[in-house]
């Protein structure tokens, strides 16, 4: 029996991609973690923060800190971007408020992005993960350069028998999502999206996988607009699908 974990599911998973959250829950349970979902969680505040509305971001952040502080155990987040917000940005957001900064620091120490935790604990996973797929992996920027997680998702994909990794040109380049950026600068965002999708198409992959639903929504929306039928998945879904 492993330690209990708390799932911070994120807004996008809740509203747009609940299957990602359910897959994450099943994976964590397979590792023996009793999963708790604090139902009063809302949003980490990143949209307001990135737009420069720090008062509003702090209001969301205080709430999240209150909710998460009332729980125990590792906080698992199926999003590099939201995880980076909690792990790195909260302390900056509260740099002038010692009490909240300390709370933020304590929570930051408890947070793990899902692929980080899964990669560490994968040896304990029941064997037999198997899936025939040629996967283009898109490292989301906040996971890769924010949290510094480069290898964990790749290790997980390699651990699945039958999965081959497609080589994507400029793999680590941003897809152009960027939260509100995608709405406020649709032309630049669209150009970046086109470039990313062209690289993915050239890779010969039959699936596109990432660890952030934001990027995935953006990429899937672009594929849909182009009329391209390429499967797009969160890493948690792929792993859940591959396990016996």
């Amino acid at each position: 029996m492993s330690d209990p974990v708390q799932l911070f599911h994120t807004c996008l998973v809740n509203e747009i991609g609940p299957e990602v959250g359910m897959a994450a829950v099943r994976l964590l349970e397979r590792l023996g973690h009793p999963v708790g979902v604090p139902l009063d969680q809302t949003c980490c505040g990143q949209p307001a923060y990135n737009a420069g509305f720090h008062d509003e971001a702090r209001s969301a952040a205080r709430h999240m800190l209150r909710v998460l502080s009332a729980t125990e155990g590792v906080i698992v987040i199926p999003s590099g971007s939201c995880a980076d917000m909690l792990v790195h940005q909260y302390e900056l957001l509260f740099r002038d408020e010692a009490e909240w900064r300390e709370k933020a620091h304590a929570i930051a120490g408890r947070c793990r992005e899902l692929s980080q935790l899964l990669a560490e604990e994968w040896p304990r996973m029941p064997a037999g993960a198997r899936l025939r797929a040629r996967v283009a992996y898109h490292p989301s920027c906040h996971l890769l350069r924010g949290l510094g997680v480069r290898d964990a998702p790749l290790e997980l994909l390699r651990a699945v028998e039958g999965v081959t990794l497609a080589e994507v040109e400029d793999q680590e380049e941003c897809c152009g999502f960027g939260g509100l950026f995608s709405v406020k600068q649709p032309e630049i965002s669209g150009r970046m999206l086109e470039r990313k999708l062209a690289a993915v198409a050239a890779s010969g992959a039959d699936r596109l996988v990432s660890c952030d639903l934001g990027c995935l929504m953006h990429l899937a929306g672009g594929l849909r607009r182009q009329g391209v039928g390429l499967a797009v998945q969160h890493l948690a879904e792929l792993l859940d699908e591959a396990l016996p």
Partner: protein
Amino acid sequence: MSAVPPFVERVRSALGDERLHVALGRATEALRSRRASAFASLEDSDRVRDLARKAKLEVLADLASQLQRFEERLVANGVEVHWAETGEEANRLVLEIARRHGVKRIVKSKSMATEETHLNHALERAGMDVVETDLGEYIVQLNQDRPSHIILPIIHLTREDVGAVMHRRIQVPLSDDPRTLAGFARAKLREEFLRADMGITGANFGVVETGTICLVTNEGNGRMVTTLPRVHVAVMGIEKLVPTLEDLDLFLRLLARSATGQKITTYTTLLRGPRRPGDECGPEAMHVILLDNGRSRLLAGDDAEILGCIRCGACLNACPIYKSIGGHAYGDTYPGPVGAIVTPGLRGLHGWSELPAASTLCGACRDVCPVRLDIPRMLLGLRRETVRTEKTPLGLRLGLKAFGWIAPRPKLYRAAAAAARRLVRARAREGWVRRLPGLGGGWTQARDLRAPAATTFQEQWTHRQQTARATGSTPGASAGGAGGAGVRRQQAHKPEAASGAGLTPAERAGGPGGAAQHPPARRR
């Protein structure tokens, strides 16, 4: 200078320029891969970067006294030192120096500081004959253009463009062969070097300890400019100081690698004053103009760190936004991520607040910066400043105010999210939305939107917990395949594997919300 068109127009015109797109893609990619291999050859590169960053930040923290020491050394070396509060003042000083020395013809080597002050225009207006001698800058000048990259001023032109410009402006035979074109330019520039009365340069670094000006070039023009004419004027930003020659060594190792992917540039010139008795060459007089032009204000603010920039251009090459829109779209002297901070820093946020907003905060710039400037953090700071001091779109402002109020109120938050979900779902067909009104229109301009789920994760989770309780199993307690009924039952709710973003037409037909209608998606 003529008025700069609005950002949105600059972006649109850049995105519409297919040749620019191709040129930028090729050049930035070449520079990125050269940089990567050059860094592979630098032993302990992380430590070198840390040391360089430390040296820079220490100078900046103590800039006033460092500048004073630097000035003392320069004067002791026989250099005349001038201080310019603004760009206009710097230009006026250059002009005064030129008149004092009876100068008519001026040659220049590449300098961002004099781009910033628009020195060429000022000198030409005063009747001086000025020629840029860096090949790229020479073409810019011939084309009455503006540089669009810190290192490669004409990154936006193809070699055919360059041939056409030279043919038109200096009447050489039309060609698109780079060697031939460079040969024409060399012959032409040689005459200019020999005729010039004064040379103007910038400074890559100023070494406090010795009062040395360091210039880093690849074409050798920097040497010609500083040795052939009888007067040399260096215009340098006050932030360009490094403490010692030993520190300079750190920066030289980083600069060429970051800028062009070279281990060292072809010419590294260290200048310590005018010609001394017995010297065979060198100018009779040397002047250094120390330019503030907004730097003191930057130094006093939250973004003082950006003054540590050594103008290598690596962040431009790494930036997917720069790669998309090129340098001119940034509207001022410094393009790319560094420009998005320096431009509002030097000129004020008003009129320039779109620059820090136009970023996905992807962090590629921070990753390649030789002195590890935290550009995303500074962009975020400028966005906050924008909200405080500038007009922001009403819809966005109200929306985010409401967000701030609702986010700490879970019930209200869920209700608002449910209402939004219903609204968007009502516009969906086959699980996708093709067009949204208002702010959402920005999204659907470039891509479709996957319709929100019919039931949220929390609803699905709660349902699962209740079912598990009813059947007496505890889903959380089951490890591995021994999963209780709760786990298995839920798997029947699991959407078709690849429906994460619903991709095959068949999957779309059900829409994400309808995914539960699919058979269990166990595939082995």
